């Protein structure tokens, strides 16, 4: 479904991603692991069209994605819930969700998806007219995921959805990801919480300073010594 090939992305003259190759198959949950500065967020931002590629290519459903402007990439079926949630804090919950559906032209479908998000996250429905900035971290994360869902993406990219959340809230978010996958949404997940991410993931890629070091199935990586040492805190 998504193929990233030899992708190089730079900030100014510094290459943040130095030629990575990976694929995401339809219906899978794929996770990118790595420490700060490994290039995970940069990778997602490049796929979304916010950053230009220096070289390499991105292909989605057989069509080239690199060079396509960001707002058109949403129309192709890729949504992102960015790192730090980046909600429109002074706007209401409902306005945030409606902006998530900005590129859609079927008002009836948008209304039913709005109802679905409120169904999935009741707290958002109850306080739909309150400003997004007033919500707790976990609730804001729900809103960020809900907002990304509103474009009816085929591929949903989540950047650090558990950042700053309590373990219970993290579980809720991970359960939501599982639900979305069962509904047929393909998910590309960037996480610092490696154990949570790998227990969900069909496939994991481990990034270090802009390179992919190795990859395997989620289950195999959970048992991998290198992963255990570096990301799971085992000695």
């Amino acid at each position, binding site marked *: 479904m998504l193929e990233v090939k030899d992708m190089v992305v730079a900030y100014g003259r510094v290459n943040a991603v130095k030629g990575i190759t990976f694929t995401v198959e339809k219906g899978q949950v794929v996770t990118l692991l790595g420490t700060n500065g490994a290039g995970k967020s940069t990778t997602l931002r490049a796929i979304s*069209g*916010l950053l230009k590629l220096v070289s390499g290519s991105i292909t989605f459903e057989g069509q080239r994605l690199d060079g396509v402007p960001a*707002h058109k990439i*949403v129309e192709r079926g890729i949504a*992102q819930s960015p790192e730090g949630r*980046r909600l*429109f804090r002074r*706007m209401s919950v409902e306005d945030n969700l409606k902006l998530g559906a900005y590129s859609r032209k079927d008002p009836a479908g948008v209304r039913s998806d709005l109802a679905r998000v409120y169904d999935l996250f009741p707290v958002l429905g109850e306080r739909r007219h309150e400003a997004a900035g007033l919500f707790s971290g976990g609730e804001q994360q729900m809103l960020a995921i809900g907002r990304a869902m509103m*474009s009816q993406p085929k591929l949903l990219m989540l950047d650090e959805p558990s950042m700053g959340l309590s373990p219970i809230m993290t579980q809720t978010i991970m359960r939501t990801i599982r639900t979305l996958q069962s509904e047929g949404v393909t998910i590309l997940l960037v996480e610092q919480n490696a154990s949570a991410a790998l227990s969900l993931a069909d496939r994991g890629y481990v990034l270090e300073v802009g390179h992919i070091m190795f990859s395997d199935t989620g289950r195999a990586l959970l048992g991998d010594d290198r992963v255990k040492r570096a990301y799971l805190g085992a000695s």
Partner: protein
Amino acid sequence: MDLFWQQLINGLSLGALYALIAVGYTVVYGIVQLINFAHGEIFMVGAFGAFATWVVMGSPKQMSWQAAVFGLLPAMIVGGMIVSVSVALLTERLAYRPLRDAPRLAPLITAIGISVFLQEVVRLFFGTIPGMPDAKRAIPFPTVTGISGRSFQIGTVTVQNSAVFTIAALAVCTVFLWFFVNRTKTGRAMVATSQDPDTARLMGINVDRVIMSAFAVGAALAAIAGVAHGMRYGNIDFRMGFLAGLKAFTAAVLGGIGNINGAVVGGLVLGVVESMATTFIPGQFGSPAWKDVWAFVLLILVLVFRPQGLLGAKVVDRA
């Protein structure tokens, strides 16, 4: 007391003129963080566009007030808007967009350059357009029967018809802007872009188009201000955008730059302060020559004691 009411009316109508221009500064600043110093010239070309429309219509002179108010005036406003919006979009496309990722000083200096450029283009070339008068000196603005030079009395207070037009135009534009920003998809996209442009793009918002609509909205209001200015003072000239633009910029900062309601309030406050200062401050400091001084004193006071402006948010809340 009569003098107070008189000066209040004068101040509000002057302030409404500032406010109509100030909206253009604030909308563009709110989205691209650019102080578009050429916006005063957009106001000026709007006035010239309205004038040119009148010439194209055959320079009509004698007409009933109905024909003037419901025919000539709307035609001049639309003509002025077409010119001002086109010029604003061209400057955005040709000058500012290529500098979108440049250091902030580059577009700012470019804006000053465009300001001078537009003044000179009008000064040197307006007269070379067939049918148009030479613009090196002030040009008498067409008389709109029923508005230009007319006034009425409320008690002892004299109200110019052009003042009524300016204040009414501001009121209509404010309602229109509120509706546009809060109830239309493009308006919501504008607010989203002003809060977080990158995330707006992730929503599928075409940020380039949002920026263009910001320039267009500001230019359309500036054209209305250009016509109001023409009717109020009776003539227009290529320099008219400089001081008016500076005052409107002051109004935008006064109200809290980036905040549309702030621009409206800031404009009105500035106009009233100016007209009150020239009446109630004794001695030479209250002479008309000092009115610009008081306007900028007000700006300095606000910047010292309330740098975010009258209606500006206290802190920038961006995640």
